[in-house]
């Protein structure tokens, strides 16, 4: 019964991420004579709230509870306004199941993202960013939708968000982002092959320029 029609292979996802970097970086900025800075390291500590992995016709929902996440990134700035980053992020949280007012725990889920993003700064305080990533999701092997998904298969995810610098003395930013992960299990009618997405809201702080 377990099958996957997800076309997002690792190769495809990485290609998309690379395309973002290429598109963001060179030509217009180079034409204007913008210089790239040396890479800087960023560290993020986040809290993640996720939508349902699966909702079935009985009203049963499988979702991840609020989970901590940590991310690291290497960022390059191009002039005053633009930048790109390569990031890795991981989170680990509980799997909660609910139906008809009953709630119970069904193990843990982990998510790892490897991706690239481009950033636009507005002065020294505000910034917005958008990115793509290859995302791996794992969960308890006996619980749907994880039991129907091939472990190790990456999924395509996209995210957009913003940041605000919290202090002038240190490069500490408040960050928030919305992420959508293409994940077949979001459809209960066909947990393995059905197309769907899992939405996640991430918020926290980032250290680094």
């Amino acid at each position, binding site marked *: 019964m377990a099958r996957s029609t997800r076309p997002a292979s690792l190769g495809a996802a990485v290609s998309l991420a690379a395309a973002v970097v290429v598109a963001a970086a060179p030509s217009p900025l180079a034409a204007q004579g913008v210089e790239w800075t040396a890479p800087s390291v960023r560290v993020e500590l986040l809290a993640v709230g996720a939508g349902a992995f699966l909702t079935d016709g009985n009203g*049963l929902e499988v979702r991840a509870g609020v989970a901590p996440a940590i991310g690291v990134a290497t960022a390059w700035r191009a002039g005053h306004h633009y930048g790109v980053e390569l990031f890795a992020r991981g989170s680990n949280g509980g799997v909660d199941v609910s139906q008809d007012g009953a709630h119970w725990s069904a193990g843990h889920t982990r998510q790892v993202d490897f991706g690239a993003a481009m950033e636009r700064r507005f002065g020294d305080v505000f910034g917005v960013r958008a990115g793509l990533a290859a995302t791996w999701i794992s969960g308890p092997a006996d619980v749907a939708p994880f039991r129907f998904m091939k472990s190790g298969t990456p999924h395509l995810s996209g995210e957009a968000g913003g940041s605000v610098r919290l202090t002038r003395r240190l490069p500490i930013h408040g960050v928030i982002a919305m992420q959508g992960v293409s994940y077949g299990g979001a459809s209960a009618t066909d947990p393995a092959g059905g197309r769907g997405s899992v939405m996640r809201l991430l918020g926290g702080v980032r250290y680094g320029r």
Partner: protein
Amino acid sequence: MAADSRRLRLAPRALLRALSIAALVASAASCDSPSTNGPLPVADYPVGLSYHDPATGDLRVFLYHWPLGSVVRVYADPAAQPAGWDLAAAVVDGGRRWEPEMYYREASLRLVSSPADADVIVHFDAAPPLLDIPAGCDVPFIQAAAVTLLCANERFDGLATLPLANGGAGHVKMDVTVVATRVADAAQLRRVVAHEIGHVLGIGGHSGNPADLMYPAPEVDSPSEADGRSLRYALHAPDAVVP
């Protein structure tokens, strides 16, 4: 040798009539339920027990399951256990065989060492009784290798607690009796107990297919796909009674 399940209430006459048509009613109920959307399919065979509503006389289907996500505590009574048999191991084995059929960890079994801690007691028929079964809720004579007993409360909206024979209150909701003389060997014991655990988890009926574990005289050791679908239906039926 058949394994069997009975739901009894304080009205034996109505009970006998209800059981005789239980299959027909439960099957009809499972076909038009809105709960069949998603990965929770239509039950392949009747999963409910039927009864006559004492107020109206109408025939109704009685579906039951444990609170979702709960751990069901089982006491396996070693008394009167034939040599070479292991009732506790059979219970554990049966629970493990059903676990893969539950997609959301709706229930799991855990052995406990005292009847006072148990939700379910499993025992051989020759063992001294651990429960004081109320009148009208007792087990009828049947030609079966095992019987799972559960009693609806007066309002048919929950399961009655079966009091302990030693006077303690306890919280036992189900009693499983294995008739040792009707079980051929240890292998059949595991099969019969696995079948009864299907009843314990929420399947009140039987399959007509010998390939299913819930066939009255089980010939297989593990739940079939049909057994799994039927259990998932029972576990998520919106009108099921929760103890």
